[in-house]
């Protein structure tokens, strides 16, 4: 999964319209996931949040949150010391 996300990630992030940017740098897990969850209601259904975190735990946390809440992580990739997520609100 991470491999697949990584390959498509850059291509997708270029064409996807981001509705909300979240700066989660410096937050410790599980707070990045909490912030994404708290903000998912702020984008319309089908809308996308771009979140940037620095805690590596978010690489598991945010996808797990998306799976269990029925939302979708379009991409999750490591860029230097940062972890960048594109999360789509499904419902």
């Amino acid at each position: 999964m991470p491999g697949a996300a990584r390959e498509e990630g850059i291509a997708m992030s270029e064409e996807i319209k981001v509705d909300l940017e979240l700066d989660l740098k410096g937050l410790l897990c599980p707070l990045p996931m909490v912030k994404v969850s708290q903000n998912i209601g702020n984008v319309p259904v089908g809308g996308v949040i771009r979140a940037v975190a620095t805690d590596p735990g978010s690489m598991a946390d945010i996808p797990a949150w998306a799976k269990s809440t029925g939302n979708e992580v379009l991409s999750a990739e490591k860029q230097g010391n940062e972890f960048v997520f594109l999360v789509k609100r499904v419902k």
Partner: protein
Amino acid sequence: MDAHTIETIAGVIDKKMTRQLKQYLDVCARCAICKDACHQYVGTGDFKYLPARRAELIRHVYKKYFDSAGRFVPALYEARDPDDNLLDELYESCYACTGCRRCMYYCPFSIDTQWIVAVGKAILIAAGRGQEMLGQLADAAIFKGENVEMFRDVLVSGFKDIEAEVREITGDPEATIPVDKHGADILYVALAGAHSIRPAAVIFHEAKVDWTISLFEAANYGYFFGDAEKAKLIAKRFMEEAKRLGVKEVVVPECGHAYRVADIFYEAWTQEELPFKVSHILEVVDRFIKEGRITVEKGRIQGRVTYHDPCQIARNGGIFEQPRDVVKALTDDFVDLVPNRAEQWCCGGGGGIVAIEEMRDVRLKSGSKKVEQLRASGASVLACPCENCRLQIEDLNQLHGLGLQVRQVIDLVVEAMPLPGNTAPRA
């Protein structure tokens, strides 16, 4: 409220009925001695946060359905059917409760308000009003547990990144963060965040411990959410892992409720005896320092240091002295907060409330006693072995300009170790 929901709610109380609960509900004299014990009531003056009031809401329903006197003369006890107002207040009072049990400490009958609040949360969940964020965090943890292979690569690659930092700090290019190591002595169950892994890995490496890291985190949002089954499932993830790996000791990180769940609740929940012991990381670090397995030097930590007892580790977990001994090994300028140990004020960040955005105001107000204590101590560094406490106290620190460094204890330990790559403190 429709008859079906009322029946469901009464059913939850029936299912949760234990001798302890029944006695707590029967004996409370509503003397309100608990009023001065609760940081939330003291900090807000809001009636709904009075510990006895939190319990009283459950008692109203209990009297109506489970007590003959209450059925016979309901007016005498204000016995009533649950309605939307009751559930609204129950939501506010139960999910705000940090479960610190300071009220129980001072109660002349030792009534465990947290035990009653747990029933309140079960009622809310059954009525479809469980706290959403805590529920999501619990579900995500269970999802990770059920789909561990899906996350293995991501987790392992995260551990590799931390491993590189550990090598830098220790100056040992061979330092590792072992994963899935069968027969290791210690299974360290960290938090999801790297900050709980890095310093522990340095300490384990320096103490030459045969250890391995868990793929799961120790935090248990099922417990905060109030769903006993979910809480059990979440803890079960690493308990089963520990059994599979055949370790001798499970070590939980600097997290309050994780310790209490693992050491005190899990065996009672599952009615099984664990073939290993459960320790808090600071018990282990204290051991290492006293046995001379790691070296710490005084003078590397600047400023006066104080220590906050997390409720779930101290009053509710029984660990009072080891963390103090660890901190005292790092500095000559240690001062305790007043009151401390079993009487320590709750900081206001427990019970999952730091993840509940809508309760931010009451959370910050409820920290007033902690702020007073911290100011009075004159300390510039706070050592605190609980993540939720630290998040709360850091917020209080910012809000009140306390000028404190709020630190994880194992971070301070690593900082006090004479290591080559140990120059600047890390986030």
